[in-house]
């Protein structure tokens, strides 16, 4: 009969109206400046540089290999290699970037720089509230603004960061006997034995390094 459909529709909207005061799934709005929607882990916006430890400048993993600058499609990364070397997190002296700039008005978030970096030094950040008053200078982020700690990386991408840390620790464990054994003046066969006999390595490593593999 005419009108039955209308009454059903009215009942539905009435239920929606009254339900919006009591249940959260009938009022799905998030009031933006005060609340934020939870982000999923795979969110990405613009890149940032990871540093280990507490000092942003000396703990940077980046060694100025220029691979990301060459691979970046819109060429938004500018790197200047330093002239001296400083020890990185594992103690080996490496170059470091004297200047590392990303122009985020050009960056298209393609993540190619992250994919090609052999040192896990550059990762994707999730921060999006980056608007500024100046269109050109303020959107050219320098090294100081790009450097963020490994703990921050764990916060925004937990599983990724855990995997990266595991890989880095494994690589460090494989490479660890070399720099540590040399100052101890152990004979050359020791690292050779370590690489040739993996069974001896776990026995040697805890003695020399003292840290868990």
């Amino acid at each position, binding site marked *: *009969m*005419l*009108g039955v459909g*209308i009454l059903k*529709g*009215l009942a*539905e*909207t*009435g239920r*929606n*109206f009254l339900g*919006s*005061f009591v249940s959260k799934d*009938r*009022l*799905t*709005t998030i*009031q933006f400046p005060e609340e934020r929607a939870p982000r999923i882990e795979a969110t990405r916006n613009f890149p940032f540089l990871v540093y280990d430890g507490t000092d942003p400048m000396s703990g940077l993993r980046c060694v100025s290999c220029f691979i990301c600058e060459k691979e970046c499609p819109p060429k938004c990364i500018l790197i200047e290699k330093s002239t001296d070397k400083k020890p990185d997190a594992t103690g080996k002296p490496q170059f470091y970037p004297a200047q590392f700039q990303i122009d985020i008005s050009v960056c298209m978030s393609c993540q190619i720089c992250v994919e090609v970096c052999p040192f896990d030094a550059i990762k994707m950040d999730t921060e999006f509230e980056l608007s500024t008053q100046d269109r050109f200078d303020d959107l050219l982020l320098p090294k100081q603004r790009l450097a963020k700690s490994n703990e921050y990386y764990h916060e925004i991408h937990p599983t990724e960061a855990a995997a990266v840390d595991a890989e880095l620790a494994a690589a460090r464990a494989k490479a660890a006997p070399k720099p540590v054994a040399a100052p101890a003046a152990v004979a050359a066969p020791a690292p050779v034995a370590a690489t040739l006999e993996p069974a001896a390595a776990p026995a040697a490593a805890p003695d020399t390094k003292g840290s868990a593999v």
Partner: protein
Amino acid sequence: MTPETIDQIFVITKHWLLGYVPAALQPIVSAILSVVPILLAFPLLFAITTVLERKGLGRIQNRYGPNRVGPLGILQPMADGIKSLTKEDVVPRAADQIVHFLAPILIVIAAFLAYAVLPIGRNMVVVNLNAGLLYFFAIGSMVELAVFMAGWSSHSKYSLLGAMRAVAQMISYEVPLVLASIVVIMAAGSLSTVAIVEAQTGYTYTFPHWFVFTPWGFAGFILFMIAATAESNRSPFDLPEGESEIIAGYYIEYSGFKFALFFLGEYLGMFATSALAITLFLGGWSAPFSWLTWIPSYLWFFAKLLVLIGIFIWIRGTLPRLRMDQLMGMAWKFMLPMTLLNLITAGVWHFMPGGILRWIVCTAMVVVPCILLSRSMKQGKTLQVRTYRYAE
């Protein structure tokens, strides 16, 4: 402070103020004192309604309404008012300047004039005309002329088309509107709105004598509300307005304050027809139960008006817009026969002796044609399962 004093507080205040005025000026001052509360109360109600509508529609649509301007957003009309006052008034160069200027003014004047015969409370009507209801419909017909003036003077083909459609819709729905109110005139025996409300103020065992509680009254009320929704161009009949989002409606060339005047006129028209529905069918200012008569009459009137406005908002949030041919088809093929049959039902009700038999007969006389007419309207339009053919 007896309940009667609170009920008549405005009348008593007006007489007290008139005592200070010399006798020669008394008619004019009395007229001014009667009119000024209407000019203050109903635009305030318009402001409240805009907030209620936006927040109500928002809640229906799973979102908050405006909630930034005041606490819970209730000062939003102030922001809207400032916006509409400070916007630039753009008038097309080829437009008819005088008519373009007069059209929104005429709409607001006609909308305000309609309140002159509506009894807001006991003894609270601006002027008690013997042919009050006829006055109301006469003023309503001036709105159509103003709509046409707006569409024509904008000198735009789309606005002219929108105006034609709006005028056609308003004229088509004026017929069921008037016919649905004739049953009330028949039952009350008078065209005066005050007399119609007086005829509904009795109580039998605490139940009121409102006309809506009779079969013909209920059908008349539903038909009147549908026609009132169409008369004030309100969703789901807002094709003249909604079309302004797609192509131009009749007030697309208006900006700033004139646009706000059109909105004011439309909402005031909605309030006026709701108030008339309350007067005709819902007992005007009388209380629903006899033990509630201590609440002042004007509070009952505004409470019923707010309930009807809430229903308008609810329907707006629920129904999709009707197409022009569906709209006109419903007016001429469904509502006109229903209102005429309602007239016959009201006559049968009047002449049959009271009792359960007259309820059964009149309810059948209203419900059966409704079902038959709705079946005949759906006849040619069976929904078929759609099959799609893809290009090879």
